């Protein structure tokens, strides 16, 4: 090309070099943490969210991002401390009937909702009955409330909750954000728009919501009933708390680095190291609890109903390699069907087995799958293919996991076909058109396993592994109703061992909720499930 000779080319290179050198020299000093610290704790916090919430109605909410926001506006009867224990919140104490089916709660008498409505037993009854009402379109809240049947107001500050069956997880479920208590006045007034006009009893009250841009909250000045979650029992320190919605990863990180926001969630693994070495920034991280990201093997599809075939996957997929390659050591590898923080987690599963290609190949040979000319195994003229379904966006690099699994399984003679679809209802739940499908769930109780592994009732939707295993059913049933904690732990350990031995799943990673903040931001805490909490937060 002719223009290479031109002096303009050289000046461009020079200009580019100047820009680049400018970038690198100023990047370390762009934020100024030298604001004088004052005695007064206060400030305005801007917090960047990675996804756009669709509702702030706890009863209707289906996703974690929403809980992160409305958790500041609402409170539940109970709360869960970081160590997993259950603490009072809007309820002061409670009794459980001998048959385990009636819960009596004594409620605080000094609480008012942000709109001035007093908090009382009727508000509790209203909130729970509202979840049962189909018009509310409740989803996750409905399953968290199970097996609640009805409430009985004893007096203004005492309420009895009646359950259809005993439930060992009902108390922990009451700590879940979806079962927060809503203001009956506001819920009646706004109807289906309550999610756009939320009113609760939390330390922050709702101010405004600009779709796709920001949600603004301000301190609720009358708040003085504190939370076991926070040291500060009075009103929050922050004057305002603004959630900015910044879906693009690079923009989110850039906005934090350039101080346009003071905190940002879900810092991508590739940025974590840079964060840790930058003195003007801090990185907070908390593993979420529940079910880790897990690949479920469809046992109804040939040949995955056979134990050997499933074990071949267990030995053929090198999970450690996946986690190391994709997350640079910033995510913990999962070893079990539940996360380490849950009741009954079986530590003995950790490092208890290693990937072994030869063993995997031997297992497949044993059940008659022989390698064909192209290296893919065949049995009775049928090729060994595996349909790996993932829902479209590459959330937490889940699409990349599929690609690595494809490479790894090819080595043992399995042809992996990756299918990306957003229509999970049809592909997975209705048609069962998959061999491997990954999922995770934020949950505070090992009873979450029930919904993923227990044979569903007649006519109900099948589980992801499409299991029908009476032994597992029985164990899960025992775990649900066993009220003695020691016995419950033993049951869940047995369940995890069994799931592992039967090679029902391939656990992959435990998701850490990461938050990057400017150095000036103090006191962001996390609850048991990894949701942030801002009652102790201030900006220096």
């Amino acid at each position, binding site marked *: 090309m002719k223009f290479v000779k031109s002096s*303009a080319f050289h000046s*461009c290179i020079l200009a580019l070099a100047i820009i680049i050198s400018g970038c690198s020299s100023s990047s370390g000093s762009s934020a100024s943490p030298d604001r004088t610290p004052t005695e007064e704790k206060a400030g305005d916090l801007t917090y960047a969210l990675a996804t756009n919430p669709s509702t702030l109605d706890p009863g209707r909410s289906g996703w974690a991002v929403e809980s992160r926001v409305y958790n500041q506006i609402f409170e539940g009867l109970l709360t869960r401390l970081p160590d997993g224990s259950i603490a009072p919140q809007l309820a002061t104490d409670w009794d459980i009937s001998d048959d385990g089916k009636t819960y009596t709660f004594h409620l605080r008498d000094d609480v008012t909702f942000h709109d001035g409505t007093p908090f009382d037993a009727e508000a509790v009854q209203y909130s729970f009955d509202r979840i049962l009402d189909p018009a509310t379109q409740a989803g996750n809240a409905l399953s968290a409330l199970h097996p609640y049947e009805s409430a009985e107001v004893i007096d203004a500050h005492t309420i009895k909750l009646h359950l259809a069956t005993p439930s060992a997880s009902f108390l922990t479920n009451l700590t879940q954000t979806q079962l927060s208590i809503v203001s009956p006045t506001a819920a009646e007034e706004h109807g289906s728009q309550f999610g756009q006009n939320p009113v609760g009893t939390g330390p922050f009250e709702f101010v405004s919501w600009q779709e*796709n841009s920001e949600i603004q909250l301000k301190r609720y000045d009358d708040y003085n009933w504190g939370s076991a979650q926070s040291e500060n029992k009075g009103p929050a320190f922050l004057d305002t708390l603004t959630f900015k919605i910044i879906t693009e990863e*690079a*923009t989110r990180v*850039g906005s934090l680095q350039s101080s346009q926001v003071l905190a940002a969630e879900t810092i991508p693994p590739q940025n974590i190291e840079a964060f840790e070495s930058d003195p003007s920034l801090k990185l907070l991280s908390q593993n979420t609890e529940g079910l880790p990201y897990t690949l479920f093997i469809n046992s109804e599809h040939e040949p995955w109903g056979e134990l050997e075939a499933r074990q071949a996957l267990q030995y053929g997929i090198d999970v450690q390699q996946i986690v190391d390659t994709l997350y640079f050591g910033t995510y913990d590898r999962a070893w079990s069907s539940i996360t380490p923080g849950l009741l009954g987690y079986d530590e003995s599963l950790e490092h208890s087995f290693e990937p072994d290609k030869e063993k995997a190949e031997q297992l497949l040979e044993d059940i008659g799958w022989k390698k064909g000319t192209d290296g893919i195994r065949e049995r009775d003229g049928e090729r060994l293919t595996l349909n790996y379904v993932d829902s479209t966006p590459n959330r937490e690099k889940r699409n990349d996991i599929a690609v690595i699994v494809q490479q790894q399984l090819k080595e043992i003679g399995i042809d992996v076909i990756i299918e990306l679809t*957003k*229509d999970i209802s049809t592909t997975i739940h209705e048609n069962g058109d998959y061999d491997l499908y990954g999922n995770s769930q934020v949950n505070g109780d090992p009873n979450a396993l029930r919904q993923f592994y227990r044979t569903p009732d007649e006519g109900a*939707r099948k589980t992801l592994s499409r299991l029908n295993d009476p032994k597992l059913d029985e164990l899960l049933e025992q775990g649900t109703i066993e009220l003695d904690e020691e016995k419950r732990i033993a049951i869940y350990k047995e369940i995890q061992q069994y799931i592992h031995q039967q090679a029902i799943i391939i656990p992959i990673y435990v998701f850490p909720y990461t938050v990057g903040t400017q150095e000036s931001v103090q006191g962001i805490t996390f609850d048991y499930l990894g949701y942030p909490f801002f009652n102790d937060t201030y900006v220096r």
Partner: protein
Amino acid sequence: MARIIAERLVTSLFVIFGSTILVFTTLYVLPGDPVDSIIDPSVATPEMVENLRKELGIDQPYHVRLIHYFSDLFRGDFGQSLVNSTPVLPQIIEQFPKTLALTIVSSCISIIVGITLGVLSAVHRNKTIDVLARMIGLFGISMPTFWTGILLILIFSVALGWLPSLGSDGWQTLILPSFTLGIIGAGFIIRMVRNSMLEVISENFITTLRAKGLTERAIMYRHALKNALIPALTMMGMMIGDMLAGTVIIETVFSRQGIGRLIADAIMASDLPVVQGVIFFTAILYILINLIVDLSYSAIDPRVRRSILHD
């Protein structure tokens, strides 16, 4: 002129009607269940899913939903978002000014930068400025929008701290996104203007003008440029449509409000009423822009008017 407008309006109605049916059908056929984005499918029981479908009216067959949709449209009702139950039209009306501002500023940048550099590069052919202009043009055309956007954020927000990288309040927030979007359009205009200028310059009438002793400056800017701008004008009309499409990416990268972001989110959530509403709205807009561009040619160039009339 009145006849041209009337004819165009009738055709436009057909286009809007057709595109609405097309979009409705496409969204109906495509996989993706809005229920998946409202409740976690792994938690919900089939009964819950069924109830929700009924509640949202998406359990109805295709033709029933289509008829409902059209009868609602005639009453000016764009429906409600399936995800947050808010009416669609107010959402579009709220978001549109932000997108409009972005499109207008980006178009201005494209046109000013594009014409200036295009002319300079033709006039100073093979000189430094020509090489530079062509490089900028090439950059604009070949770089993916999101990449340019992130690059600008890294330089001007993170490293230099001069400009905000997010939000849609205030004129400062417009600068980076409109440059990102504007540079693409500028790239096309630079090439277009440069080529047509060079073409015009080699025509006989320029030689005549030179022979008449006009200054080179007068020839270039008074006579050649005027002729070279007509093809560029067509380009700009088309470009405004492209810019509307480009806002989908730009608004996401720069976390701006706008209908681009609205539709991107709605598509991810399979929120059909919102997707349909935005497309219906943009189709009308697109047609209006094209109408204006067509009419403005015929105003500028009498030959075009005659050819439309004699079609």
